């Protein structure tokens, strides 16, 4: 084999290896399966108050970046304005992206704030909910499971009542 052929062969092998690395290996990523209107109506207020402050997930450098009227805004000129549909949609995509394909009960959005004793996962922001049956995790599990029913609305309303923000 000449040096030129050897070089071409190596080049071909390298290209094949790179292409293989980029191939779809069969996993699924569940993005965009939850409803933005349901998120805005039922869930966002809970996340804004408990997760989306500027000193927690209202920080673009952290995983699960959350935009909020009282927290991080997408653009400077939005400060003091109501949350936009674009920001709400970005929040939903951030939720979808943080644990794609996870079952609702095991989703990181539920496990991280949950007390470790209740099956939660260590969270720098602390343990926000003592049990899975508290209003907020019940609301989130229902939402992540794609539900939009009366039981979910009741849980989410109770969760929002726990964290209601004073008016501007």
């Amino acid at each position: 084999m000449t040096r030129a052929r050897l070089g071409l062969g190596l080049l071909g092998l390298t290209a094949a290896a790179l292409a293989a690395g980029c191939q779809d290996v069969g996993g699924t990523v569940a993005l965009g399966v939850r409803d933005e209107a349901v998120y805005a109506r039922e869930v966002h207020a809970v996340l804004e108050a408990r997760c989306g402050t500027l000193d927690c997930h209202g920080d673009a450098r952290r995983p699960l970046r959350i935009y909020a009227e009282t927290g991080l805004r997408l653009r400077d000129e939005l400060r003091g304005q109501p949350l936009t549909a674009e920001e709400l949609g970005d929040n939903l995509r951030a939720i979808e992206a943080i644990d794609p394909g996870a079952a609702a009960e095991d989703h990181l959005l539920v496990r991280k704030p949950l007390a470790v004793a209740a099956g939660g996962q260590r969270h720098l922001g602390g343990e926000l909910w003592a049990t899975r049956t508290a209003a907020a995790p019940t609301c989130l599990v229902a939402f992540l499971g794609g539900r939009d029913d009366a039981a979910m609305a009741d849980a989410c309303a109770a969760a929002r009542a726990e964290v209601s923000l004073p008016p501007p």
Partner: protein
Amino acid sequence: MSRRTLAQVATLALAALLAAGCLGETPEEQAARALGPDTCGGGRRRGEDDDEGGPEHRCGQPCLFCHSASYNPGEKIFIMAGTVFTRPGDTVGVGGAEVALEDAAGHQVSVLTNSTGNFMLSRGSSLQQRGKGQVRVPFDLVYPVSVVVRKDGVERKMRSHIQREASCAVCHAAALSATSAGHVVLEGP
């Protein structure tokens, strides 16, 4: 060049690189230096030579950049500190404003701001109001913390909770922006 000389040169170069790496600033030092001069003086601009500390200095700046347990060239260590202004755009804070905090464990503490609007909480063995915006508390704050500021019949409750940041100015820089809610103010947005 002999192998021995080459090795000596390489060793010297490596030592120089290591020394340069160690002589640089830490992130905390960089953050503190980036604060710039103290402009807190009722319109009177202070030079850095005048930055001798004291509870009235550097109003509106993130206090714990120099007063935290992990980095404290300012010597005093705070567990929460900040500045209250009368309105947006003010360069000096307002004295005599009450800052009332309640943490997740139910601890309540109230402190009056000093002449430049600053207040600061430190750990102590008992509750001590020390004047000039300083108070010592016999507990660690349990987050989230809620805050109300009051003065002359005006009361404002912070709409969100403080979840972990102990320097108000980290989230309340002077200018409104995507990442800042603006100064803590009694009047205005």
